[in-house]
């Protein structure tokens, strides 16, 4: 995808996608298992810094990407703040009831959302899906039929968009006027869903038949060769050290300079 085209290449781009995926899944699990608000705050800060340093994409694009961060923060934190259980009531209005416990728990969820977003973008901004699936096939022995299916369908997706445009034009030519409002939206969805899906199933089936004929399913012989060879390099060691170091740093700062100092946020 050209949108993710980096301005400069960093260590993270040069590392093997499988290693990168492994490290980021590890970090993800660490974030899931964190229930301490100070630790999660510093994780959010440290991984956002990592993202700015390592993603290699332009700062203006990064600002655009920070919109999902904001949405993740707001939608994870607000409902917990307003409706979470807690003893120490700060503010109450009708059904809304903000307590001290629920406020901090909401804040914790907001920081967690930011951390997840940063970890996800660290991977997405630096890895092409082709490199990822070739790596998974060669290093983790993912069956080629899955890997090639994923790669092929990502390439087929723009054709579905083309079908959509054709369908829209066809409906225009036939003089079908769009109905306004919710009812119109439902009606429109119905007019597009069936032809688009049917067409993509047909196309996928044709492509799959051709791929099977070319033995992309990899049923014959274990020792197939690959056009792109996935290798482990010294950059893999570097990024493992770098990202593990980032996690350690956030843990240490949380211990030495806790902001909130309330520990576990669970009820």
């Amino acid at each position: 995808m050209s949108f993710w085209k980096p301005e400069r290449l960093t260590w993270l781009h040069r590392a093997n996608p499988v290693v990168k995926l492994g490290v980021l899944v590890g970090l993800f699990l660490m974030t899931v298992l964190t229930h301490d608000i100070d630790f999660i705050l510093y994780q959010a800060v440290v991984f956002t810094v990592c993202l700015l340093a390592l993603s290699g994409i332009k700062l203006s694009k990064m600002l655009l990407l920070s919109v999902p961060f904001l949405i993740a923060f707001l939608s994870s934190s607000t409902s917990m703040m307003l409706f979470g259980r807690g003893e120490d009531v700060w503010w109450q209005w009708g059904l809304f009831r903000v307590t001290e416990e629920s406020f901090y728990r909401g804040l914790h969820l907001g920081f967690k959302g930011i951390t997840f977003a940063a970890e996800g973008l660290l991977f997405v901004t630096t890895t092409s899906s082709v490199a990822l699936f070739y790596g998974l096939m060669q290093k983790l022995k993912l069956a080629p039929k899955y890997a090639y299916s994923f790669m092929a369908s990502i390439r087929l997706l723009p054709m579905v968009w083309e079908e959509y445009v054709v369908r829209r034009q066809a409906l225009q030519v036939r003089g079908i006027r769009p109905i306004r409002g919710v009812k119109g939206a439902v009606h429109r969805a119905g007019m597009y869903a069936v032809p688009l899906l049917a067409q993509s199933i047909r196309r996928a089936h044709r492509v799959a038949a051709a791929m099977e004929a070319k033995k992309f399913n990899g049923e014959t012989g274990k020792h197939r060769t690959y056009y792109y060879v996935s290798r482990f390099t010294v950059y893999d060691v570097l990024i493992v050290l770098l990202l593990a170091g980032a996690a350690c740093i956030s843990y240490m700062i949380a211990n030495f300079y806790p902001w909130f100092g309330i520990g576990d946020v669970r009820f």
Partner: protein
Amino acid sequence: MQSNVNAKMNGNVRRGLRLSDILVTILISLVLGVVYHFWGSVYGLFKPLFFQADEMMYGMWFAASTLAFLLIRKPGVALIAELAAAHVEVLFGSGWGLSMLLYGFIQGLGAELVFAAFRYRNYTAWAAALAGAASAVGSMFVDIYMAYTDSYVLWMYLAKYSMRIASGAIIAGLLMFALAKALERTGVASLLRPASAKDYAALDDSRDV
């Protein structure tokens, strides 16, 4: 045709996923994954209606598993479909990042288990509705762990998840069943399914010696 008959004899046709099954599953899921990505805004539209009204729209995010299973009817399809749809969201740089894959996995697993409980032989609207509801229950468990929803006040918790389960049953179950039926009428489903005993019986003409 001959090879198909042979495969049938060896019992290869029904067992396992072929590349074409996987490719079709993934492409359907990617299309739905794009819908998933923009569904957030539809979801947001319902928010002001009444309290937690957005949960009524949540079921769309379980649609890939049921639709793919109803069309392809093989073991494993429901799980792959939901994972593939979640992978689109990660690819598009959604704010939810990798947690999307975890949700996708558990939701797909919920639907898959329901279809497995029927030994993958039940393609009715009921089975689909049950699978949609099971995905919702799966997402509830992930929510408890990831978003501490168990520490909401009780009435809020019940309202949220009963609406979500109902939405899963209606949107992912019944609506996708209707869509699958509509797709069957276009004739594409015959591409996807292995030939049935009835098809083979049609080959035996009693006039042939």
